C-alpha cells in the first residue's frame, strides 16, 4: 500500500535514501527515524520491493529487436550528413578538386578570362565600398557621441539621466541603421 505517512515523516527523503542520494549524515539521521517510526520502516521496505521489481523489469531489454544492419545504416546515414565530421584528408581533396576545376574553367574561357576576372574585381570593389560606408557611419556616430560626452563632462553637467538618454539615442540609431542594412541586403 502507498504510505499514509505522519506529519514530519521524510516522504521524499525515503526515495532519496533508497536511491543512495543522501549525505552520510542525513542517511544516519533517517535511519534513526526509521528505527522509531514503524510506518516509515514499512514504507522503506515496500518502496525497496517495488523498485527491485521495477528495475528488474526495466533492465530486461532482450525483447527489443533491432534490425540486423541497424549499426551500419546509422553510421552510413551519419557519415552522409553534410554537416557531419569531415576527415582532414577529405577536406584537403575537396580543396584540390575545387582549385583544379577553377583553373580548368579559366583555361577554357581563354581570352575571355580577363573579362571574368574584371567582373570578380568589380564585385569585390562594390562589397568593399558598402563595407567602408557602414564602417565610416559607425565610426562617425561613436565619434559624435564621444565629443558630446566629453563636452558634457567638462561642463560638469553629465548626470546619470543625461547619460542614459544619450545611450538610448545611440542604441536607437544603431537599431535603425541595422534595420536599414537588412533592408538593403534583402533588396
Amino acid at each position, binding site marked *: *500500500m502507498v504510505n499514509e505517512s505522519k506529519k514530519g515523516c521524510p516522504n521524499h527523503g525515503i526515495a532519496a535514501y533508497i536511491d543512495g*542520494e543522501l549525505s552520510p549524515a542525513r542517511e544516519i539521521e533517517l535511519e534513526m527515524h526509521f528505527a522509531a517510526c514503524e510506518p516509515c520502516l514499512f514504507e522503506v521496505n515496500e518502496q525497496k520491493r*517495488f523498485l527491485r*521489481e521495477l528495475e528488474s523489469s526495466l533492465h530486461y531489454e532482450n*525483447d*527489443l529487436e533491432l534490425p540486423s544492419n541497424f549499426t551500419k545504416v*546509422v553510421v552510413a546515414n551519419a557519415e552522409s550528413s553534410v554537416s557531419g*565530421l569531415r576527415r582532414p584528408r577529405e577536406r584537403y581533396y575537396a580543396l584540390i578538386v575545387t582549385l583544379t576545376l577553377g583553373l580548368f574553367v579559366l583555361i577554357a574561357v581563354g581570352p575571355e578570362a580577363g573579362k571574368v576576372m574584371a567582373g570578380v574585381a568589380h564585385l569585390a570593389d562594390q562589397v568593399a565600398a558598402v563595407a567602408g560606408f557602414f564602417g565610416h557611419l559607425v565610426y562617425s556616430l561613436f565619434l559624435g557621441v564621444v565629443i558630446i560626452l566629453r563636452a558634457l563632462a567638462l561642463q560638469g553637467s553629465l548626470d546619470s539621466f543625461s547619460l542614459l538618454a544619450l545611450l538610448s539615442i545611440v542604441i536607437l540609431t544603431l537599431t535603425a541603421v541595422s534595420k536599414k542594412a537588412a533592408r538593403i541586403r534583402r533588396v
Partner: protein
Amino acid sequence: MTAVAISLNGIRKLTDGELIEGAVAGQVEGFEELVRRYQRPITSYVYRMLGDYESSLDVTQEVFIKVYNSLHKYSFDYKFSTWIYRIAHNASVDHMRRNSVTPQSIEVENADGSFQIQLESHAASPEQERERSEWRTEIDSVIRCLPTVYRDLILLRHSRDLSYDEIAEVTGLPLGTVKNRLFRAREMMRELFIQRGFTGI
C-alpha cells in the same frame, strides 16, 4: 589528441573518450563502436518514451546523427552517457511535440506541480505482447500511462541508472524538481498498480 589503435579487437576495449577522439580524428571505426555500444540503451529509452517501435528507430538514428555532427564540440568535462541521453531526451520530446496527436503530449501541470494520469495509448503489437511476461507487460503499460515528464524520470533513473545530478543535467530541470517529480512518479505508478489489482506494491 592521442593516437588510437583501430584494430577491431582492440577497439572494443577503448573508453568512450578514446573512441570520440578517434572519431574526431576521422576514424569511422570509433564512431561505429560508439553506435554499437549505445544503440540498444538509447533505442530502449526512446521506445519506452514514445511507445512506438518504428518511431523509436527513427529517433535513435536522429540521435546518432546529432551526436556525429556535434562530436567535435563534445566537452570531456561531461560523461558521454549523460551527454547522449540529453540528446535522446531532447529528440524524444521534440518528436512528441511534432506528433502532438498522442494523449501524453497534452499535459497540464497542476498548481502543486503534479501531473494528471493520462489515458493509455500505443499498445504494442499482439505478437510482442504475447512474448512478454505478464509482469513486464504490466510495467510497460503502467509506464505508458504516466505523464511524459514522470515517465522520462522513471526511465532515466530506473532503466538507465542515472544519478539525480545526471538526470537534472539531461532534462535541464533543477535538482529539487527532479527529486520531487521522481517521488510523485513512483507514487503514481504504485497507485496505478493498486488500481489494476496488484496488491502489496
